[in-house]
């Protein structure tokens, strides 16, 4: 059986590119703070979502709508409307994180398949089974902090499908609870849907170096010709106790394409590609690459060699926690 590729789309054009490149499923969100990629110029209107679902369904692909931020007190109707509109658009599932919103969806939209977002940071079988028993969750997107053996152990203890990230931006924080960006900008990744919001990002060429700032704080300085990173605090270069370096994590991207056979053996159902903020050119290339990989696996052929490094932050890839022990 072919593993499912779950591919990003920040715009209708990217959705079409993903479908044409062979995506089994596309995840996307509405153009507001109900999804965790609430960036300028990105995301879908209600009409675009319905058209996108129709386009995908006509070509045998599914659409999963990410409504994966946490509703603010007093503003829950915005999130409730998003779930209702996702169902009305014909979406195949919603990707949720907030227990209150999961309960609302289970009660008012019982026929709408519910996936648990990585924003819920559900990293063990007990909590995953709790979400399944309480809210009928059918699939969990696992946090990017687990090794392959840990994923296999989880799959042995739950009937909930698991989906894991295989490519793109690498977040190693307790997703849905991380406040690093909030401290620097006043806007929350978890409630406003913006980690390192562009409105607070500033790049400046200074003395031959590129300085990258977030909320006025300098996160990086890189010399001429060095790869430029996003100014995210978790990937910043800091001086601590006399040593200067990437204290939390290196500015590199996840690339686990060579681990796909091991992830399949560990019982993983679906492979997720990060990058709703990326262009349709990126989406097409990455999706084509991963579709070829899962098709090769299903046919018993070796994994094709990847050519995706230049698309990556820091222009360097890592297998992340899948093969790593934390320092």
């Amino acid at each position, binding site marked *: 059986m072919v593993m499912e590729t779950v591919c990003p789309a*920040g*715009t*209708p*054009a*990217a959705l*079409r*590119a993903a479908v*044409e490149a062979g995506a089994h499923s596309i995840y996307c969100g509405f153009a507001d703070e109900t999804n965790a990629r609430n*960036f*300028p*110029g*990105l995301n879908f209107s209600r009409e675009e979502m319905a*058209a996108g679902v129709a*386009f995908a369904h006509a070509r045998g692909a599914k659409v999963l709508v990410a409504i994966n931020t946490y509703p603010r007190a007093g503003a829950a109707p915005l999130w409730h409307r998003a779930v209702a509109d996702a169902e009305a658009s014909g979406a195949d599932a919603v990707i949720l994180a907030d227990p209150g919103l999961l309960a609302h969806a289970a009660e008012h939209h019982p026929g709408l398949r519910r996936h648990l977002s990585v924003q819920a940071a559900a990293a063990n079988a007990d909590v995953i089974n709790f979400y399944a028993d309480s809210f009928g969750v059918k699939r969990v997107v696992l946090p990017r902090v687990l090794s392959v053996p840990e994923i296999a152990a989880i799959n042995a203890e739950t009937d909930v499908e698991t989906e894991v990230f295989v490519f793109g931006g690498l977040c190693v924080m307790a997703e849905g609870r991380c406040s690093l960006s909030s401290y620097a900008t006043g806007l929350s990744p978890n409630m406003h849907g913006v980690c390192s*919001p*562009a*409105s607070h*990002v*500033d*790049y*400046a*060429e200074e003395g031959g170096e*590129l300085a990258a700032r977030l909320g006025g704080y300098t996160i990086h300085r890189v010399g*001429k*010709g*060095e*790869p*430029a*990173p996003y100014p995210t605090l978790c990937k910043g270069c800091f001086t601590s106790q006399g040593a200067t370096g990437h204290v939390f994590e290196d500015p590199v991207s996840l690339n686990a394409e060579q681990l796909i056979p091991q992830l399949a053996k560990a019982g993983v159902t679906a492979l997720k590609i990060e990058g709703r*903020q*990326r*262009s*349709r*050119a*990126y989406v*097409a*290339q990455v999706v084509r690459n991963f579709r070829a990989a899962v098709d090769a696996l299903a046919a018993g052929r070796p994994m094709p060699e990847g*050519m995706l490094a*230049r*698309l*990556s*932050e*820091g*222009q360097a890839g890592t297998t992340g926690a899948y093969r790593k022990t934390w320092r």
Partner: protein
Amino acid sequence: MPSASQTIPIFPRPAGMMLRPLPLAPLSAALSMLARRVVTRHPGLLRRLGAHDRARFLIDPTDLPLVLCLEPRGGQVRVTAHRQAPRADVRIAGPLAALLGLVHGAYDGDALFFSRDLVIEGDTAAALALRNAIDDAELDLAEELTALPPVLAGALRRAIALAERRTGVALTRVAEGPAW
């Protein structure tokens, strides 16, 4: 999609020098007409720009002896060509081939930024909104030229054909997909 910097052609310096005496007023008028045509045919562009549709975007092809100032002005789009950079909210700079490749979906903006082929200075949110709006519009600038008066369209087509031959950049949209 081509990978980034090794394959990004640089506009040849002698050809760039030939553009130096180009009269800016007619060029600005032609580009403004083209931009208004694009916005009319792709209303999603302005919608995706949102609050940034009043920003001034400085587009700086670093291998050409001129810069462009793009002002969406809520739909009354204006593009002006300058020899010296005017004040703007954000500067987006890179080789002409990279900028056109972004418009035509040949390159990924983040990948160009990581590789330092693309420089963003100023209002990052405005730059991001413009990038995303253009990426969704699936523009083909050569196709848009058909709206211009024949004399201007012909001159621009010849210039584009020359640029295409000299630089090797794809000046038409890539990765065609069915539209809704």
